[in-house]
C-alpha cells in the first residue's frame, strides 16, 4: 500500500507538468496579451509604453523562456502577482517591508468555492442516497418512475436558466432570499450568529444550483448500483438464511452499492470547479469561478495559470483521496486481493 501511494504521488509530478504545459501554450498561442486589454481602457497608451509593460511582465521573451521562468517561481510556491489588479499576489499573502499584509487572490477565493461545493456535496448525499435506494426498491413502480423523471430533468436543465428563474421567483417576486453576493449590507455590524445566518441565506440558491446536476447523477448511480447488487448471489444467500430484509438492504446491499460512489466523487471535482463559473457569476460570489472569468477577460496570465494549476492539483488530490478511501472501505483492495 505504501509503495503504491508513493508511486501515485510521484506520478502527480509529470501529470502536473503536462497540465501546466498545455495550459501555458494554449494561453500564449492566442493573439493579444494584458497590454491589449489595458490599452482598451486607456486608448492613449503609446506603443512604447506597451512595450515597456511587456518587458516588465516578460511577455517579450519566447514562450518557452516564459514557461521556464514560471516553473522556476512555482518551485518556490510563488504563483506570481496579478497583472490586472495592482500586483496582488495570485496565490498566497505577502508581507511588505512595512508589515502590511496583502492577501492572495486564490487564498481569498478558494475557501468560498470549496464551501459551496462541500455544502452542495452534502446536499447531494443527503437527497440522492435515499432517492436512489427508494427507486431501486420500488423498481418500475411509480416512485421509481417519478425519480427517473426527476433524474432526466436534472440532467437536462441548464443551471444558469434555473438560477435565473429561481432568482426571479424567490428574490425579486417574493424577496424570500438574497440573490447576490455572500453578505448583506451592514453585515459587519451584526452579531456573529446573525452573520452566519445572513451568509447561510445567501448560500441557499448557489448551493442548490451547484447541486442539481450531481443530484440527478448520483440518484441514478445509486439506483443502478443497488439494482446490480440486489441481483448478486450473496444477497440471495442472505435472504435464504432468513436475514431480516432491512439488514439485507442497509447492511449488505447499500454498503456494496456505495463503494463506487467514492471514485465518482473523486472524478467529479474538475466538473464542480468548472461549473462554479456560471453559478458564481450569476450570484456575484467572489469565488474561483468569478476570479477566473474576470482574469480571462483581462488576459491576466498569472491568475489564469494559477487557477488552472490549483484546480488540477485539487483534482489529483481528490482522485488520490478517493483511491485511498476506496482501499480503506473495500477489504479486497486493502489486502491486495484485487
Amino acid at each position, binding site marked *: 500500500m505504501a509503495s503504491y501511494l508513493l508511486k501515485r504521488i510521484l506520478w502527480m509530478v509529470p501529470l502536473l507538468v503536462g497540465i501546466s504545459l498545455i*495550459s501555458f501554450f494554449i494561453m500564449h498561442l492566442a493573439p493579444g496579451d494584458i497590454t491589449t486589454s489595458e490599452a482598451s481602457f486607456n486608448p492613449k497608451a503609446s506603443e512604447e509604453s506597451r512595450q515597456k509593460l511587456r518587458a516588465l511582465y516578460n511577455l517579450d521573451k519566447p514562450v518557452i523562456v516564459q514557461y521556464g521562468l514560471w516553473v522556476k517561481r512555482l518551485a518556490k510556491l510563488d504563483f506570481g502577482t496579478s497583472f490586472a489588479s495592482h500586483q496582488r499576489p495570485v496565490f498566497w499573502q505577502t508581507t511588505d517591508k512595512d508589515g502590511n499584509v496583502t492577501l492572495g487572490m486564490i487564498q481569498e477565493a478558494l475557501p468560498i468555492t470549496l464551501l459551496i461545493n462541500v455544502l452542495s456535496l452534502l446536499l447531494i448525499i443527503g437527497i440522492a442516497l435515499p432517492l436512489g435506494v427508494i427507486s431501486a426498491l420500488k423498481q418500475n413502480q411509480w416512485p421509481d418512475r417519478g425519480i427517473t423523471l426527476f433524474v432526466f430533468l436534472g440532467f437536462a436543465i441548464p443551471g444558469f*436558466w434555473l438560477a435565473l*428563474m429561481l432568482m426571479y421567483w424567490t428574490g425579486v417576486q417574493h424577496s424570500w432570499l438574497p440573490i447576490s453576493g455572500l453578505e448583506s449590507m451592514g453585515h459587519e455590524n451584526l452579531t456573529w450568529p446573525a452573520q452566519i445566518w445572513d451568509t447561510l441565506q445567501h448560500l441557499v440558491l448557489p448551493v442548490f444550483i451547484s447541486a442539481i446536476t450531481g443530484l440527478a447523477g448520483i440518484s441514478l448511480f445509486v439506483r443502478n448500483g443497488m439494482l446490480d447488487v440486489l441481483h448478486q448471489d450473496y444477497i440471495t444467500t442472505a435472504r435464504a438464511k432468513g436475514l431480516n430484509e432491512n439488514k439485507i438492504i442497509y447492511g449488505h446491499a447499500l454498503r456494496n452499492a456505495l463503494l463506487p460512489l467514492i471514485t465518482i466523487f473523486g472524478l467529479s471535482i474538475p466538473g464542480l470547479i468548472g461549473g462554479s463559473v456560471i453559478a458564481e457569476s450569476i450570484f456575484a460570489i467572489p469565488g474561483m469561478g468569478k476570479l477566473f472569468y474576470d482574469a*480571462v477577460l483581462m488576459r491576466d496570465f498569472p491568475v489564469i495559470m494559477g487557477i*488552472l494549476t490549483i*484546480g488540477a492539483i485539487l483534482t*489529483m488530490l481528490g482522485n488520490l483521496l478517493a483511491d485511498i478511501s476506496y482501499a480503506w472501505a473495500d477489504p479486497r483492495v486493502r489486502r491486495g486481493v484485487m
Partner: protein
Amino acid sequence: MKLVWQNPLTLIGFIIITSILLLAAIAPLIAPYDPNAINVKAILLAPSQLHLMGTDGLGRDVFSRMLYGARISLMVGFVAVGIATLIGIVLGAIAGFYRGWVDTLIMRTVDVMLSIPTFFLILAVIAFLSPSIWNIMIVIGLTSWMGVTRLVRAEFLSLRNREFVLAAQALGAKDFRLIFGHLLPNSLTPIIVSSILGIASAVLVESGLSFLGLGVQAPQASWGNILTDGKEYIQFAWWLSLFPGLAILLTVLGYNLLGDGLRDAYNPRSNQH
C-alpha cells in the same frame, strides 16, 4: 431495432429531436419575421397571435430568433461532437490496437486532459480567440474527446483477440483493414451512444458560454444569447427568459432519452433493470 422503440421514453426522445431538427431545417420557411429585423414600434411585446413568443428589447420577434437559434445550437452540438468523436476514434484505435508505449502515451495524455477543469480551459481559449461559432465548436470538440478515446480503446482491447479478428489477420489482412474493416464496425454502437449523449452536453456548454457573453455573438441568435438578453428584462418580460431555457431543456432531454434508450437496448446487462 424493434427493441429500441419498445421503450416509450426512447420514442419520446426521438420525436423531440426530429421535431427540433425539422423546425431548424425549415426555419426560413416558417419564421414569421426576419430574426434580426429591429422594430422600435414593437419593443418588449408580450406573446400574442402576432408574436407567438413576444418580442425582445429591440423589437425583434422571439419566435423567429428561437427558430434560427435552433440551427446554431444543433450545429454546435453536431460539429463539436463530430470533432471529438473523430479524435477519439483515431487515438483510441491506435492505443487499443498497437498497445505498448503509444498506448501509455495516449492514455496518460487522456489523464492529463481529464485533470484540467475543462470549462475553464474552454472559457480561456474562447475569450482569447474572439468568440465565433467556429471557434466554439472546435474548442468544445478539442476538449471533449477523452471519453470516446477510452471507450474505443476498451472496445478494441476486448475485440483484438477474438477469433474473427485473428482469422482476418491470419488471412493476411493489413492493420488498416483490421482496424476499419473489422474492429471499428463492431465497436460502433457504444460510440454512437456516447456521441448522442455528447451532443447533449455540447448544447449545454454552448448555451452556457453564450450566457456568459462568450458564445455566439449578436446579432446572430442563439438560445444562450436570447436568454442573456432576457436576463436584463426579467422583471417585465418573462417570455424572453422562459422560452430559450425550455428549448435548451427539451433538446438536452431529447438527446439524453434517445442516447440512454439506445444504450439500454444494446446492452443486455442493463436490460435486466
